[in-house]
């Protein structure tokens, strides 16, 4: 064991760093999905498309800024701008025009509406951005790399993936926990999640809260995509990949837990990147194996609370 560790310390180090960056991105998407499910009671299949559209929009804005000759730090502004734009435009549009019509319908129908939306958005992406890979890695290059010592080896790792991604994820986690527990709007959201009818009876405008939550969740997905955009080549299909991964995170964590989602994202992100370096064939399998193993032992998810059975 000791010699194995010494021989593979470099790979293990890389896997840890990659896993951390990976987990940060997965967390951003999964926490939005969780929030939206809590309030709307809809498993939003199109959440992954919002991630993809966020990524494409960020790349487009970034390239546009660069073409205008703006300073290169504006690349970061492009990321935030893209997330806000997607959340503020697509969020209300989808909630108002589509989802609002199907609240209270059967779960299957709600799921399928978001599946239809996913199909439509998938083609919208292809029509707007084409099928050729797009990459815009200015924000990644600007910060350069950091040399990290690992045993005798030194790993050069991009500062963007090392500091910016986990930093923003942690900030989101703390900010969200504070927002939901300490501010009036946040507590109203929690109230609607717990019991919509009772909350409405107390004079809460549930329709407004739903709109707000969905747009916010959409914005988080888009921010995840925007942050991911400098680290990967954007091709059709990234939305489909992202959504199944965040489904795995949400189901493993159990519903309604922000900190739980963060820990699970970390677990799954690390598991996946360790697989990338040591058993690349099983990279995609690992998150689901973790999920199955967890649900086998704890059917309500790692951090989920057992819901009382409907009698």
């Amino acid at each position: 064991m000791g010699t194995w560790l010494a021989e593979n310390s470099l790979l293990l180090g890389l896997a840890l760093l990659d896993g951390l960056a990976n987990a940060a991105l997965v967390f951003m998407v999964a926490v939005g999905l969780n929030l939206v499910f809590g309030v709307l009671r809809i498993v939003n299949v199109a959440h992954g498309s919002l991630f993809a559209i966020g990524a494409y929009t960020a790349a487009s804005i970034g390239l546009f800024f660069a073409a205008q000759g703006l300073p290169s730090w504006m690349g970061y502004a492009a990321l935030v701008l893209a997330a806000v734009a997607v959340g503020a435009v697509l969020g209300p549009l989808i909630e108002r025009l589509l989802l609002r019509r199907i609240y209270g319908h059967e779960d299957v129908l709600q799921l399928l509406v978001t599946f239809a939306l996913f199909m439509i958005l998938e083609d919208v992406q292809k029509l707007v951005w084409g099928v050729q890979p797009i990459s815009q890695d200015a924000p990644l290059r600007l910060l350069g790399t950091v040399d990290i010592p690992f045993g005798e080896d030194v790993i050069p790792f991009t500062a963007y993936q090392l500091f910016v991604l986990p930093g923003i994820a942690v900030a989101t986690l703390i900010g969200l926990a504070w927002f939901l527990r300490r501010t009036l709007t946040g507590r109203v959201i929690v109230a609607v999640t717990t019991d919509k009818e009772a909350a409405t009876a107390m004079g809460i405008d549930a329709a407004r809260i739903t709109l707000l939550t969905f747009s916010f969740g959409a914005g988080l997905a888009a921010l995840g995509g925007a942050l991911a955009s400098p680290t990967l080549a954007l091709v059709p299909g990234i939305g489909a990949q992202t959504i199944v991964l965040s489904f795995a995170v949400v189901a493993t964590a159990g519903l309604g837990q922000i900190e739980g989602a963060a820990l699970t994202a970390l677990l799954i992100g690390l598991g996946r990147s360790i697989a990338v370096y040591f058993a690349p064939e099983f990279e995609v399998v690992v998150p689901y194996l973790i999920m199955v193993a967890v649900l086998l032992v704890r059917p309500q998810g790692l951090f989920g609370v057992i819901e009382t059975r409907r009698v």
Partner: protein
Amino acid sequence: MRRESLLAALGAIGLVACAWAVPWLKFVLTIALAKGIAVLGILLLLRAGQVSFGHSMFLALGAYTVAFLAPSENEVLLLLPAAALIATGVGLVLGLFLVRYRDIFFGMLNLAFAMVLYSLLEKLYSLTKGTDGIRVAALSFAGTEPERGTQEWIVFGIALGLAILFGLLVRSYLASPMGRALAGIKTRETRLEFMGVPARRVLLFAYVLSALMGGVGGALIAMTTRHVTPQIAYWTSSGELIFIGILGGAGSALGPFLGATAFELVRVYAAAAVAEAWQMILGAVLLLVILFAPGGVWGLLSRRWRA
């Protein structure tokens, strides 16, 4: 009920007539029948209020069984039962674990298993040739190896025959006490338990039956397309099956076939008309159906009769 049988008979004759009049439609219609058989399984689970977001795995199991076995044993009459057997076996093993879960957990666990299968099919290149997929070797039918045109007719005929068989099976199953208990899982599972009905066993039976039909559907797809890729196990393929179930309507065993035919025809024509946006058109059709015809095609038809 008599109208349903009449419609089924008319539908079968219509399909044969279409396949005869427009030869290239035969391919599309065979796929539609195969998917319809798989969707019958989705229908059973929908009765219990459960959505499997991973039924593509049974399609894939059936299809890959055919692709793997065909080089050594190419007899269709043996390949079909083999595919059904493997899908049923896997369905039973997974089902024992899955029927403990409901709603989102049921859906997501199914998804997880399907994704595991998908990535194994994609990554184990030496066995499965990865995303390139496997070409299905030439098939023989009851010992004979007919030429291509006849072969297509035979597969079409088998698909139609099995569709009718499984349709009748599902209809009488749903009318039986076991089948009726499924609706109890959807509304009030606790009451079932109070009545002494083991809910998990009821769901397990439906799940295994749905796995069997998924395997048969997948095998028929492999025999029609003659080329199997991991894409058949991807989660979007499961989504398609649920899509077809809702499109056709969950009210009758005819629904899945109505839905599958409509789905495949819309897909073919949409892809021909606007190659880049066929998915968008399918999505829009799905939205229209859910918002304006929640009973699906079957619901529209039966409402007209009642009026």
